[in-house]
């Protein structure tokens, strides 16, 4: 909210420096987003036009004799056309400093002009919100008054952030009340008195809904619609509200001043002075003040006359009963509407007004009276005849007292002011406090505070007024608890292991556009998962949640020409047909130069597998992984493996399908390993196995077998055939080509043999190999000759 300090100072004594006021506001929970300093303006005085005549030498100029208090009147020429004898205007005297210039004596077509008549622009006010030409002041302003001092135009404007719970502070009085309480100063309320002199027909308000709890209605007659006094127009303009006319301005002024939105209906347009607060009926329509036509929804709360709808409650008035220059009598509305209801209407109408931002937060009933009285005072002061006020609905009632256990203050804050101080602080804020026994206070919030409903709220008020700086920093002795950090520690392990293996961690956005789907389509591949879609994306580029981490890696690689290694840990999402599913995933990937490997071998894939085994060993403490070939969309059909532990998938390893790689415009082949972090079994502590102390021996076997026979099958068969002697089988070479028959390959395997009880002899080793070879024959593997 824009808060002109000049306005705020009317209600409370404040330090001169704007930043000190800002600091105080921040200290009590109203941070100041910006301090708008006003330009330095000097030498601008109020002047009365005593005489005005045409310039003898210029058709478009007039020359005035201006009374500026002391001394002789000043002779000033002007090109403005809205000037007339008797007007009170602003005069920039010789030497005056204005935002754009300094005033010097000058001759205008032969006449020495001793200053300048000014427009609103020269006072750094929005020129198009004021008179076109010379700004007009009120007749009671004494000539010679310094306008900057008089209207405090040099005082800064603060942009104050008001949290949604403090609608009571969304006003000058509301903030002044807080500042007064914090400083222990007095709050000066503006005058609210007025005389009821009219006795015309009574307004009637029928409330047909629970969503209007109070409606004060009052008629004012004998009105003349004209411009507001300068002080009000200046305050409204500084607060960001455009001045319109004396009626509209009063309703805006009172809303900014008290926080209570008002509405003025042209009373002559309201049949029988009768208003009805009710739900809109199907098919009803309303043209609002801004000329927009709205088709109303039964959930809209309307203020209707006997014939037609006159406005959307708390949101905007209707054109039918709009105040115009011809208005002679008004019906004032100061009402309280349900916050949620106004919020829904506002959302539906796509319309937010100063009034609705207040109503939707749930205004205190108390404010209806304050707003009505203040408006009545201002309208009467402007010459209107006030008729009796009629209030409908509930009257504001104090809340039941809140029991506050005194010990709870320390329990929540870690410190507590003395009881005397506590009571004093609450009293300043308008809370009524009564001791209840030794250890309890009964606290009744003031009528304007709807946000305080429990002891914790009261404690916050105490802390706020005492100052949050009094909360002392101490360390708790946290009792041991049983909550586990396993998932987090796993992520940390993954990150550090992969970092050690030379991978860079990347963080990409989880919301993507249609481009991933398009790349798969371009590659002629189906999407591996149905993506989860956001209902209200910010843009088409952020419509889908990522279903995998690999596409971001591919995009990363596609942007560079040299090989790179990256990993990402993050959530992925897919739709299982019934509901969105979420997984916590890890992917590491690299791009590599195309190697010289034959079609049946890929050393990059083996590197990937090696890294996967290091990682999975680190995570699980185990090494007994197995692998099964697989086919996945987006993966090379001949270079894909599922990594298994205890028969369950723990990771997938693959080369990115070259077609997908091309669809991403990536130059280098890419390899990726992905794992669902929740599918990886927890770390198993290994136990130490003492090795036999007798030396081992080994035999290298060159075996010829069918191309399709996996090396792992051979290794398993050998190990299984020699349970007592074999302590290791390791395939160390593979060969295909002219040296072996068509459809066959040669595999070199080293078999390590050892006896637990004695040194194994050559004869025993040879016999073991013969035994293993016999078993291998069943797999079609024979010793190469």
């Amino acid at each position, binding site marked *: 909210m824009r808060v002109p300090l000049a306005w705020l100072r009317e209600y409370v004594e404040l330090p001169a420096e704007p930043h000190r006021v800002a600091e105080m506001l921040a200290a009590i929970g109203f941070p100041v987003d910006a301090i708008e300093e006003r330009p330095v303006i000097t030498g601008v005085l109020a002047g009365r036009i005593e005489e005005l005549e045409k310039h003898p030498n210029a058709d478009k100029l007039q020359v005035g004799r201006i009374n500026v208090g002391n001394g002789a009147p000043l002779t000033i020429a002007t090109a403005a056309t809205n000037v007339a004898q008797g007007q009170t205007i602003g005069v920039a005297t010789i030497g005056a400093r204005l935002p754009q210039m300094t005033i010097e004596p000058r001759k205008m077509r032969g006449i020495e002009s001793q200053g300048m008549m000014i427009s609103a622009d020269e006072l750094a006010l929005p020129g198009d919100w004021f008179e076109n030409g010379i700004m007009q002041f009120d007749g009671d302003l004494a000539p010679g008054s310094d306008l900057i001092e008089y209207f405090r135009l040099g005082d800064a404007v603060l942009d104050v952030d008001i949290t949604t719970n403090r609608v009571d502070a969304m006003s000058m009085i509301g903030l002044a009340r807080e500042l007064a309480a914090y400083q222990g100063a007095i709050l000066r309320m503006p005058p609210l008195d007025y005389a009821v002199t009219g006795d015309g027909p009574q307004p009637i308000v029928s409330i047909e809904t629970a969503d209007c709890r109070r409606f004060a209605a009052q008629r004012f007659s004998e009105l003349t619609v004209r411009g507001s006094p300068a002080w009000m127009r200046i305050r409204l303009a500084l607060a960001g509200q455009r001045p319109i006319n004396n009626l509209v301005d009063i309703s805006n002024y009172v809303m900014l001043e008290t926080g209570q939105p008002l509405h003025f209906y042209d009373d002559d347009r309201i049949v029988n002075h009768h208003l009805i607060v009710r739900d809109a009926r199907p098919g009803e329509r309303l043209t609002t003040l801004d000329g927009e036509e709205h088709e109303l929804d039964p959930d809209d709360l309307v203020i209707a006359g006997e014939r037609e709808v006159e406005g959307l409650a708390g949101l905007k008035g209707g054109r039918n009963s709009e105040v115009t220059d011809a208005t002679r009598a008004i019906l004032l509305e100061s009402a309280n509407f349900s916050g949620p209801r106004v919020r829904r209407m506002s959302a539906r109408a796509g319309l937010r007004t100063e009034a609705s931002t207040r109503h939707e937060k749930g205004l205190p009933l108390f404010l209806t009276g304050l707003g009505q009285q203040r408006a009545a005072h201002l309208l009467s002061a402007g010459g209107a005849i006030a008729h009796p006020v009629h209030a409908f609905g509930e009257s504001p009632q104090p809340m039941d007292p809140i029991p506050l256990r005194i010990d709870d203050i320390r329990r929540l804050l870690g410190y507590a002011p003395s009881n005397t101080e506590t009571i004093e602080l609450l009293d300043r804020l308008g809370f009524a406090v009564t001791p209840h026994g030794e250890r309890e206070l009964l606290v009744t919030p003031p009528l304007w505070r709807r946000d305080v409903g429990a002891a914790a709220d009261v404690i916050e008020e105490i802390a706020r007024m005492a100052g949050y700086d009094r909360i002392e920093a101490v360390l708790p002795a946290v009792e041991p608890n049983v909550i586990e950090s396993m998932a987090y520690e796993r992520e940390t392990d993954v990150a550090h292991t992969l*970092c050690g293996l030379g991978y860079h961690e990347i963080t990409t956005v989880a919301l993507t556009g249609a481009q991933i789907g398009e790349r798969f389509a371009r590659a002629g591949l189906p999407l591996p998962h149905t993506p989860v879609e956001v209902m209200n994306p910010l843009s088409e580029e952020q419509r889908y949640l990522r279903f995998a981490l690999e596409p971001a890696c591919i995009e990363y690689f596609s942007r560079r020409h040299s090989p790179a290694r990256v990993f990402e840990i993050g959530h992925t999402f897919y739709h299982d047909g019934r509901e969105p599913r979420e997984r916590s995933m890890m992917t590491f990937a690299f791009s590599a130069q195309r190697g010289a490997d034959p079609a049946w071998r890929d050393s990059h894939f083996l590197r990937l597998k090696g890294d996967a085994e290091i990682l999975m060993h680190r995570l699980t403490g185990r090494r007994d992984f197995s692998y099964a070939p697989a086919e996945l969309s987006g993966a090379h059909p001949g270079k894909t493996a599922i990594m298994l532990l205890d028969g369950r998938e723990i990771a997938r390893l693959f080369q990115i399908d070259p077609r997908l790689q091309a669809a991403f415009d990536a130059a280098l082949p890419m390899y990726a390993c992905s794992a669902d972090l929740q599918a990886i079994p927890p770390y198993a502590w290994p136990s130490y196995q003492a090795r036999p102390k007798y030396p081992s021996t080994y035999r290298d076997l060159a075996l010829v077998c069918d191309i399709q026979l996996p090396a792992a099958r051979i290794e398993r068969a050998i190990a299984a055939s020699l349970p007592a002697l074999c302590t290791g089988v390791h395939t160390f070479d593979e060969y295909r080509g002219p040296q072996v028959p068509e459809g066959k390959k040669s595999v070199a395997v080293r078999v390590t043999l050892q006896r637990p009880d004695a040194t194994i002899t050559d004869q025993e080793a040879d016999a073991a190999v013969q035994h293993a070879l016999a078993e291998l024959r069943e797999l079609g593997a024979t010793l190469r000759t």
Partner: protein
Amino acid sequence: MLPGAFVMTELDNQLTELRARFSYEIEEAGDEQALEAVRVLFLGRSGYITALRRSIGQLPAQERPAAGRVINQAVEAMQAQLLQRERTLSARAFQEELNHRIDVTMPAPDPGEGSIHPTRRIIETVCRYFSSHGFAVVLGPEIEPEYYNFDALNIPADHPAREGFDSFWITPQLLLRPHTSPMQIRTMEQHRPPIAVVVPGRCYRRDAVDARHHFQFTQIEGLYVARDAHMGHLKGLLTGMCRELFGAQQQVRFRPSFFPFTEPSAEVDTTCPLCSGAGGTCRMCGGSGWIELGGSGMVHPNVLAKMEYDPQVYSGWAFGLGAERLAIVRYDIDDIRRLYENDPDFLQQLA
């Protein structure tokens, strides 16, 4: 001259000659291998000395001991010579290696170093600090039902505070969490006090992207519920955390604020590390001398009651910090988007 004396003289002569040859040979031997060959030739099992010993057998019995002594003395001397030469050679060999001189300023080959993302480094530092004070680190889902995001956190439908959470909705009931606070509820549902957890996690809000805002960000939630939890503990731990991250001079300031799920509530600021709180024209803090870290407060009694924790017995506090914000300050990053762009130079610089 006695025949024996002649023989002894003969032996002496032979030994003298042998030792002269031996001296010559070991001086000739340029390395340990050659020296070993000399040893074998003279002192080995079938070397000259052995041959000489055998010849003693031809001496009269009474002269044999003296002859043996003479040979033994010679062998001892030769072995001493051998050892001496061995030491010389070994020293020479070391000397040669020790004479190597390299240019230690030559660049190392690219070690293929990996890196951890700066945001993770921040999370790890914060989590490590809280772990050291007895906090567990838990993680949670990013798609959450409305209930966990809002209702259970004392933000019913139509609550004006929902406006502060402009969220991405997946279905009318499910949304991408706009904060990590749903994990307060999940943790309190699953455990009984004492509860001490921190929750790092990805959050999403419909914010336009600029240098300071992103629709995707990382929050670090903290929750402590116990019989004696109070705001002083919150301030104490956050101060400790800031000192861990930014240095021992850090201060933490609380400012009153409003969050529906905490009461009292506080905004948390820490001394701007760039200007050490001096403010002025500091680009990091905009001259205020303080950096805003996030929101915090005492868990609202309604939230505790919903979890069936008696608010008269238990109290708790919670906080939510922006990890990216901490990273921006810690690493002096000029634009939050860099944390999602993965520029190799950026990652390498901050690795």
